[in-house]
């Protein structure tokens, strides 16, 4: 379960992200455009989480399941067998662990409509997809300024051809 970092591969002008109101006010006084955003959890970013207890030693371990499907062979590999491990808790955990509920993007004051910008630290939870049980979200990314808002580019999709 991890964040995916694109990097500023197109050498675009950068949008800073701030979470502190004093810094946000300062950025506003410096002539930047302030775009406040709320962080809304994405439903696909919740994952099943189990806590198992070893029947012999009593040791606790946490995982997303008793086993997993191995990538190349497609075999199901059991890590926590019923014989050895008792399931003591089943819950759902969120894959992005951050401690803010909102933040502000600092857009350069001279930004042009339709200009592409690079956001180094995304406030929103943007889910990308999964790969072999791993789930990924964007930590950064390119976006287009439409005059009122940043429109994030979603680039991850399995493609065919």
């Amino acid at each position, binding site marked *: 379960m991890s964040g995916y970092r694109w990097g500023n591969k197109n050498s675009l002008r950068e949008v800073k992200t701030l979470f502190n109101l004093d810094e946000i006010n300062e950025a506003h006084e410096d002539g930047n455009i302030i775009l406040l955003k709320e962080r809304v959890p994405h439903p696909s970013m919740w994952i099943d989480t189990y806590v198992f207890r070893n029947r012999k030693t009593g040791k606790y371990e946490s995982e997303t399941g008793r086993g997993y499907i191995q990538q*190349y062979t497609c075999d199901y590999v059991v890590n926590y067998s019923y014989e050895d491990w008792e399931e003591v808790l089943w819950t759902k955990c969120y894959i992005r662990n951050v401690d803010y509920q909102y933040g502000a993007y600092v857009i350069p004051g001279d930004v042009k409509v339709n200009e592409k910008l690079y956001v180094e630290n995304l406030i929103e939870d943007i889910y990308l997809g*999964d*790969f072999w049980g791993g789930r990924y979200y964007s930590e950064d990314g390119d976006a287009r300024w439409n005059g009122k808002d940043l429109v994030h580019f979603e680039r991850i999709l399995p*493609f*065919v051809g």
Partner: protein
Amino acid sequence: MLIIKDKKIYQDNVLLKEIHCPKKMKQSDLQKKGKDFICLSCNKRIINTDHLAEDELASLLQKDKNTCLSVNPLNPLFNYL
């Protein structure tokens, strides 16, 4: 490491394949068959690269650049630029 740039797959700066579907098929349009997929439009086999190692995929494309692939850019096999 295989590099994907502008939907082209490179290995050591050598172009292996351009990922292009003239019918603009998506993975959701394909029928799963074993580890791979079948294209319901062309009836061709689409190789699911989730199951391949780098050398296997490179060797496959060196033999036939027209091999149809399904590529998940989140696959750590690829560096997606």
